[in-house]
């Protein structure tokens, strides 16, 4: 069964159409790139999948159900901006995730935090921007979820952090789960993806596998993206 499925999904904000008649599905075991220029509707799609917005028409299903309390237990979401409570210490943050998510692997999270030399008593407020993003990613990837939705996980971080984030995503790969990474920094994530979705102005332009693009077009996804979205 598809982990994420959109059927004629449309979302309008007032008179502005953010997504128009989107149809696609994502199967478990895939790491999918949701690629598109800024303002193409990537974040709107991810928010819809999290139930933070409601569709105007059509439907979006997570593991066969409309987003709600049940699907949230199966979805692990990394928002575009760091949103873990700043006043918490690392330990309190671990408590928090453990309390609310039955699938949270605390030992895995602790190991990754230790690897970054983050002290249990340290408050999120005292961490640098990059560290905060890493900590939130650790919380998100330490869950054994069915669907990971990562909104711009590598935007605005230094290259070393970028590598760390990508290798954390690969290191937590689960053939039963799907990962969706939204980004416009394609060359950095290309190798990590096996499938890509191009969206532009709220419409799906292309769904294909990375190696299929390279085999058939003889160019990287990054180059194809530049061609498709040439200004």
């Amino acid at each position, binding site marked *: 069964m598809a982990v994420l499925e959109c059927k004629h999904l449309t979302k309008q904000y007032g008179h502005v159409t953010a997504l128009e008649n989107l149809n696609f599905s994502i199967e478990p075991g895939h790491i999918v790139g949701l690629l598109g220029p800024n303002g193409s509707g990537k974040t709107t799609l991810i928010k819809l999948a999290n139930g933070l917005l409601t569709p105007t028409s059509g439907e979006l299903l997570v593991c066969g159900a409309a987003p709600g309390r049940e699907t949230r237990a199966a979805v692990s979401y990394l928002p575009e901006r760091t949103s873990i409570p700043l006043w918490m210490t690392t330990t309190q943050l671990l408590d928090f995730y453990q309390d609310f998510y039955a699938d949270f692997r605390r030992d895995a999270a602790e190991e990754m935090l230790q690897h970054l030399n983050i002290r249990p008593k340290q408050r999120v407020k005292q961490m640098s921007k990059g560290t905060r993003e890493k900590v939130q990613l650790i919380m998100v990837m330490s869950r054994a979820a069915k669907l990971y939705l990562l909104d711009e996980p590598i935007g605005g971080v230094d290259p070393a952090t970028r590598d760390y984030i990508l290798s954390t995503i690969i290191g937590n790969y689960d053939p039963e789960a799907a990962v969706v990474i939204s980004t416009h920094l394609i060359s950095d994530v290309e190798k990590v993806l*096996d499938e890509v979705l191009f969206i532009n102005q709220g419409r799906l332009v292309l769904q294909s596998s990375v190696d299929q693009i390279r085999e058939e077009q003889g160019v990287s996804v990054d180059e194809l993206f530049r061609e498709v979205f040439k200004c």
Partner: protein
Amino acid sequence: MKWYFSDNAPIYAQLVQQIKVGIVTGGFPPGERLPSVRDLATEAGVNPNTMQRAFAELERDGLVYSQRTAGRFVTEDRAMIEQTKKGLAECHIRQFLESMDQLGFRREEVIALLRQESGKEELGNGGSGM
């Protein structure tokens, strides 16, 4: 092991190529157990499914075999490894000759140039770490 990727070939094909080089140069010795798909994918920074596909390709070539529980191993067939090595070398030479053709060298000139160049360097070019 360092991994490099170019833009114009499929990633799985580049992985196959580089793992072959690893096997030929002893990075992955004959009969040795290979790292798991996940570990190797993490190391190379690639999608585990792509790495899986590369392994499947290597298995089809017979360079790698898998044992149900124990994992994947490099073949012990040294002749096959030797042949792969030769194959890789031929591939490099073909590419080299193509570029020389483009530059307008005739074969005799190329051979002369090669002699001259290898005389200069006292390097035993093992061709490692391409």
